[in-house]
Each structure stands twice: as C-alpha cells, then as structure tokens.
C-alpha cells in the first residue's frame, strides 16, 4: 500500500484543523497514514491523530524543536522521511510548511509542490494542481527524479472527508542529535490576534482606499466581528501604512479562497482580483458602479460604504446573535 507521511502542526496540545484535514484526506484515499509531529509532548497527539486516520505517529520531542527552527526541523524531518520511505509527504501550505518542505526538498533532493488545491494518487505517481501568478493561471505539477513527492496543500480546499475513528496512533520516537545547529530561536512573540490567518479564514472582510483613513478601520472591524471574519486589506491601504503587510490580499500579498469575501471600498486592481477571485461568494461595496471589483462580485452594492457597512453589521448581528 502506498504510504503518506503527514506533517502535523499543533498548538496548545491540539492538532491544527488544516493538518487533521490532511490526515483524513490521505486515509480516505486508501493510503497508509503516518503522522509526524515535533516538540516536547508531541506524543500526546496520538489519540487525535488516530481518530483522524493515522496508524502511526513519529515524534521528535527534543527541546530544540519546541519552536519552529528551520534547520532543526529540516534535519529531523528529512531523517524521518529517509527512514519511512513514503510515496508522498503531505503538509499544510502554511508559513511553516512552505519553509520546512523546501528545506527538506533540498536536503533529500526531492521535488516540492507549494499551494496545491487538488492532489491525486495513481499507484506511486502523485499529481497535483496549483495556482500560479497568484491565481491568474493554474497548472498541473508532476514529480520526477524524486524518491518521494513533497506536497503542500492549501487549507480549506480539499473536499471534506470523514474517516472511521481509529484508536490512538502507535508512537515511535525518532531521537536525533541537534546540538550543533547554526540557527538559534531567540524569541517567539505570539500575535495578539486570535482570528484565523487570512490564508485559513472562512470569511474575510477587506478594506480598500475607500475607507479614507486608518481611523475608519473600526467600521470594517465591527463588520468582521459580527461575522467572526478575519480582516484583510488592499495593497493601496498597506502601502499607505494604514495596515500591516500581513493583511495584504493579492499579488505581493496573500492569495485567499474563503467561502465569503466582502470587499469594502476596493476598486479591484488586477493584482487584487488575482488574489481573491477563487473565493466562493464575493460581496463588493463601492460607490463607483464602474469599479472592476463588480465584475467579480456575486452581489454588488453601489453606494457609500460609511452608510451601508454599519447597517450590514447590524443585520448580521440580528441574524447571527439573536
């Protein structure tokens, strides 16, 4: 049977939903599933990994791997891949996943596919589909001259799969000498936002230049809060210094594909449209009825955002919180 290694990201003793999704995906595809997790107490994830389809869980529990260390994680993960000899290695196309998988690809001289939105297995051949030019095109990607295929999958894009929950995964320790690293993690400053990152968010409310100034962001934030949405911004807003780059949607920012994308005061430059056009439903609020964003919008609202948005917030609150 083809074997899939799934790199599991976890926080506060729980596996991230984007990693659980991959365990279930691999299991329901008929593959033998081995989960891999790093950090002290990683073996405590065995029950959750087992419930979601992993028969085995390989861990490296060194203190050096408490936080993400590109060199340490790279070394530990490539060692496990060499021992396990899987058909493919799956991970979430997160900031960590993209960093780690490429380092491992270099160490093992195997191909890496970033940001995949579909993955298929035919025997030992792995094929994936991914966007390029931040979504202005898509292409298939295949692997060659590689002993395994390293595949990073975007969160929330695979068809949801269910699996029969298994017992706790069998834990194997992979010990490794990590003392001679040339990379030291000095400090990790946790972000204050408890909202999902844009790349994982189900609902995004984004602000454009139409909001006129950073002091008006609260209008957007209130709308987002009423929906439990994450907040994004156009490049114009980021370049004006009204929002950090981590909030930028579009080419030179993040490509997103939420279920619902609400664009407020965004005209829709080609770079922005590329980054959000694969959203399932798009709502646009803009005072210029000729704005290009309306060509992509499922529902277009022409008018003054400062009038419409607070009313939308009220309506959402009424619907969702009463």
């Amino acid at each position, binding site marked *: 049977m083809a074997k899939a290694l799934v790199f599991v990201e976890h926080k506060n003793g729980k596996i991230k939903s984007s990693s659980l999704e991959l365990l279930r995906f691999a299991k329901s595809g008929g593959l033998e599933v081995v989960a891999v997790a790093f950090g002290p107490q990683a073996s405590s994830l065995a029950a959750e990994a087992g419930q979601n389809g992993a028969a085995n869980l390989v861990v490296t529990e060194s203190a050096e791997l408490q936080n993400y260390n590109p060199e340490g994680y790279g070394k530990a993960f490539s060692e496990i891949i060499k021992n396990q000899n899987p058909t493919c290695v799956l991970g979430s196309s997160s900031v960590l996943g993209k960093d780690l998988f490429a380092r491992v690809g270099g160490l093992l001289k195997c191909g890496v596919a970033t940001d995949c939105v579909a993955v298929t297995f035919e025997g030992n051949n792995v094929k994936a589909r991914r966007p390029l*030019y931040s979504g202005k095109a898509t*292409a298939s990607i295949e692997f060659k001259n*590689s002993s395994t295929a390293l595949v990073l999958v975007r969160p929330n894009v695979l068809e949801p799969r269910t699996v029969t929950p298994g017992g706790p995964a069998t834990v194997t320790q992979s010990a490794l000498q990590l003392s001679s690293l040339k990379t030291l993690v000095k400090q990790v400053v946790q972000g204050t936002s408890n909202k999902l990152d844009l790349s994982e968010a189900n609902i995004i409310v984004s602000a454009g230049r139409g909001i006129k100034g950073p002091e008006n962001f609260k209008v957007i934030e209130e709308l987002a809060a009423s929906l439990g949405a994450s907040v994004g911004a156009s490049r114009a807003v980021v370049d004006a210094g009204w929002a950090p780059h981590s909030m930028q949607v579009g080419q030179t920012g993040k490509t997103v594909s939420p279920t619902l994308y609400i664009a407020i005061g965004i005209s829709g430059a080609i770079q922005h449209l590329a980054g959000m056009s694969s959203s399932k439903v798009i709502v646009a609020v803009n005072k210029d009825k000729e704005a290009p964003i309306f060509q992509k919008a499922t529902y*277009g609202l022409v008018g003054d955002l400062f009038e419409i948005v607070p009313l939308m917030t009220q309506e959402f609150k009424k619907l969702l919180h009463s």
Partner: protein
Amino acid sequence: MKIFVCVKQVPDTETKIKIKSDGSGIETQDVKWIMNPYDEFAVEEALKTRDKLADGSTVTALTLGPKARCTEVLRTALALGCDNAIVIDSTETLDTSATARALSEALKKEDAGLIFLGKQAIDDDCSQVPQLIAAHLELPHASVVVKFELSADKSKATVERESEGGTKEILELSLPCVIGANKGLNTPRFASLPNIMKAKKKEIAELNLAQLGISETDTKTRHYEFQLPPPRPAGRTLEGSAADLASQVVKLLREEAKVI
C-alpha cells in the same frame, strides 16, 4: 565580505496572463518584464548591509534565465548600486530545484558570505529557492524576513520573520546564511538616471548550466496543463436605499448563497 543577491525577472503584476495553445506555459511575447518585487527588498538590504559595513564588501547580483532577456534585470540591480553582476544563461525554464542547484553551484565558486533573495517570485509563486539554496550549501536560512541585523563582529545575523496571525519569530543565524526578504524589510531605493546610464556600460559575467554541472536529473518537478481560472458566474447589482441594500445582501447570503 562578498554579499550576493539573487534576482529573477518576472512578468509585471499588471500583466494579463494568456496561456499557450498547447497548455505548456504562458504566452510571453506581450509581457512587460520587471524585477520580482520581493527581490527589490533583497537588493536594498544587500546594499544597506554593504554600506553599513563600509569595509570593502561588495554586492553581486546573480540571475538565471535566457540572457538575451534577463540581463535587463541585472542592469536594474547595477543601477541600484550593485557592484557586479552574473547571469547563468538558460534558454529553457528550469524548475525550482534545478534553479536552486545552479545558483548554489555559482555561489559556492564565489565564496558568498551573505545571500539575499526575495521570499518568493510572483510568477510561479513557489516560495522555495531561498530554502533550497540553504539546504544545498548546508547553510542556515530564514525566510519571510522583515528585520535583519548583523552583529558587530560580522559572525551572526539576527532576523525577525513573520509567521501566521501576526506571530513574530526572532532567529539568530551564524554566517554565511541565506535570507528570504519579505515586504516590510526596508523601503527600496530608486535608481538615479546617471546610475542607470552607467549601469548600461558595466560588464556582466556569464556562466552556463554545463559549467555548473547541471543536468536533467536536477529537475524534480514539471508544470503542465496550464489553464486560466474558470470564469466566475455572473453576479448581480442590488438596488435600493442603504438600508435596503444591507438587509437584501444579508438575506441573500443566508438564503441563496447559504454561506452564513
């Protein structure tokens, strides 16, 4: 110290992408080419570091691609202030693995002390080459970097990288190391007209893939079956007062689109 910055020529972000009729890639004839935007931050950081060191350190820009076209991106780098430029001539499009291997071999020959690149190129969006180079050269790396500082004895770099949800990771790397630059690292300078003119006359060194020992087996992935994204179904514009619009759209999202 020999500081290197790897740059890539990519289609301008305004480009409307057209697919070749056989699906093997994109049409390039009407494309306007620019320096990958993330590489601009890498170039700026390399130049800033050299100028701060002021100890005779140099910055060399390195690119890979068809030389007839992509020496232009090196002229841009030279006009911005890079001291030297090298092109690795390749007429065919290489994947990330072969590209990184070729760049690594060139860097190895040059004894690079610090290597800067953009964290990702905005054409194939792979976000891999900084890490791949670091792995090939067995060097530490950090990508998605928004702050970079060299220690006084030039043996270590402290960097800040952006992770998810506003989390910041602060790493210390021993030199030589590889840095993937993110937007926010600095504010790239503009080239002055006299420097643009001077850059046109500077010599550009050339390497080829055979010299670097690159062969077919260095290619690990292939992109094919290119397509444009499916067109979105036509939407509709809602009519009415602000209050009408707000209540209509919320109702439609619940009852028609069923997304809330």
